[in-house]
């Protein structure tokens, strides 16, 4: 180590120790979470993770406050008003799960102009001044078909369960699935229904289309719909196809029951709701003065036959398989993007 580097390091330490230093200290900063929806188990897990991780961060003095706000109606206009309130309340950063990728851009721009750091995740915004922590949803869809091609090399008919019509995430995952089918042409999608990421809606939709379908080899899903599909197929007394699951506890539990009873094999893939905590740490790092690229990618959480039991044991009853991120994880993701 050269003398020069040592000097610089000691200066940095001195700066960090000083109570009023301009950078490298976020203990006086306030971060807000703007969330558009709380009405399903994934979002509930997301908020719980946020409270848990940020609660500790506030207690240990990393940041001054990390408050979570959820809009009641899942409307972009309502969330825009919420962001404007946050600007007035003087938050230093806003972590955002947006109702719409474009409709909030005006409010996000206002926040940026007021000097506020905006980090969007899961439901990202296109406004260039905001950071985006996105999931490669296309790959999530494609990897399902890839898995099926290994499991069922002879191919067969697929039933696709989509999410909520008109939502960006639904289009992306579905595009990935169709890409996968092009890549592995031994598969054919014979039916497609919208399950709205909810077990009961998926169950209803699958029960409605099932009578008209030929035998199905696999079901490709988007998460939150696999258990409903299994219920509908079981009720119709059809042979159980390979249903790709979405990390929900009820899905994993059903998979475990089938695995124990008949050696049923599948896989499960989704985003961990704890991605909110990754967004929190990224915001903290930006406030800390770190240079962070505007577009970051978060890995998805995949569960396979071998680690099913372990993941099931770690998943809260009725919840979603989850990972909570640490400051080190965030630094790793930031470094990886550079």
């Amino acid at each position: 180590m050269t003398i020069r580097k040592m000097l610089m390091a000691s200066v940095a330490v001195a700066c960090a120790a000083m109570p009023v230093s301009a950078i490298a200290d976020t203990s006086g900063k306030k971060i807000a979470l703007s969330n558009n929806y709380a009405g399903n188990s994934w979002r509930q897990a997301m908020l719980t993770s946020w409270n848990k991780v940020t609660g500790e961060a506030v207690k240990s003095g990393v940041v001054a406050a990390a408050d979570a706000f959820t809009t009641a109606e899942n409307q972009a206009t309502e969330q825009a008003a919420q962001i404007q309130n946050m600007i007035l309340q003087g938050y230093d950063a806003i972590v955002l799960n947006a109702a719409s990728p474009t409709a909030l851009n005006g409010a996000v721009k206002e926040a940026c102009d007021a000097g506020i750091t905006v980090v969007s995740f899961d439901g990202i915004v296109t406004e260039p001044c905001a950071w985006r922590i996105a999931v490669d949803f296309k790959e999530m869809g494609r990897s399902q078909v890839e898995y099926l091609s290994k499991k069922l090399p002879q191919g067969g008919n697929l039933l696709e369960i989509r999410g909520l019509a008109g939502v960006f995430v639904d289009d992306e995952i579905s595009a990935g699935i169709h890409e996968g089918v092009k890549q592995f042409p031994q598969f054919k999608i014979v039916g497609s229904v919208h399950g709205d990421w909810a077990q009961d809606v998926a169950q209803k939709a699958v029960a409605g289309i099932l009578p008209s379908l030929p035998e199905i080899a696999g079901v490709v899903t988007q998460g939150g719909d696999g258990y409903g599909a299994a219920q509908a197929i079981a009720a119709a007394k059809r042979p159980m196809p390979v249903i790709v699951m979405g990390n929900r506890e009820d899905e994993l539990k059903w998979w475990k029951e089938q695995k124990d009873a008949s050696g049923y094999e599948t896989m499960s893939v989704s985003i961990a709701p704890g991605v909110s905590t990754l967004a929190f740490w990224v915001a903290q790092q930006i406030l800390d003065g770190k240079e962070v690229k505007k577009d970051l990618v978060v890995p998805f959480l995949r569960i396979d036959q071998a680690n099913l039991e372990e993941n099931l044991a770690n998943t809260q009853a009725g919840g979603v398989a989850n990972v909570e991120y640490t400051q080190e994880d965030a630094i790793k993701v930031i470094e990886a993007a550079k």
Partner: protein
Amino acid sequence: MRMLDRVSRSPWIWSWLAAFVVWFATIMVTGGASTLDLSQAALTFAAFSIIVGIGQMFVITLGPGNVDLSVPSTMTLAGTVALKLMDVDNAMIVPGLVVAVLIGIGVGMLNYALIKALRIPPIIATLSVSFIVQSAAIWTNRGLRIKPPSFLADFTTANSFGLPNVAIIALIISIFAWFLLEKTVYGRWISAIGQSTPAAKMAGIPVDGTRFVTYVFCAVLASLAGYLLACFSGGAALNMGSEYLLMSIAVVVLGGTAVAGGDSNVPGIWGASLFMFLVVSMLNTYGLGAGIRLIMTGLIIISVIMLAGGRQPGAR
């Protein structure tokens, strides 16, 4: 001939006709092989719409402006609390049911308290109650999904005499509702209030009491549907009621009940509920994209309402 004339004038015939056409178009895809499966699926899922639809119909019959928007959140709260209380224990089925019904009574009373005491229009009052109830549901179990007791799970998904059990429950409730509407003084009172509240008051009808009972009845049916749906789909979810907000109103209107109130129709609810399930199945079966599917659903519903709405005055 007069018989045919009467039938064609009854407002419920159109929803039944539409349901039949859609049913026929769907089974034709597989050359009739799917007839039994599709019919059973339709009856099963229609049953839930029928139960909430009947409650909504009673409220809508009370006249312009009367509607209960707290139906979905009531279903969610009743489902979550009942399943949490039963906690997979077959011995707790009856207490679970009682609690679900009590929740319905509570929500109904709260609804009417806001409408009457604070003079808030029903749409606003029931919407605000639905926020409170939904938050209560989130607060009780944070989205946890608890399995129903095994007996209930089997019962709600099984058939008796070829008919789904939930459809049989819906049938019993429908007969009870029809009896209430057509054969009791209470039913006459609802219709009278819906046709003209001032006139009903002049005639000495206890308007407040009748409206109160009706809102409570609607909420109880919603909580009952939530209880059954949670057991049927293997656990309560926070968003399980959401599609029944529009559904409960749509089946009432499609079924030939007057939106302006004062004239209700139980058989129409059945036709409309079957139709609402079958139309989605049909469009899914034909493999149309989501956009076209939604537009088609809208167009088909509008045409059925137009046909059903063309009733002659005095043909009640």
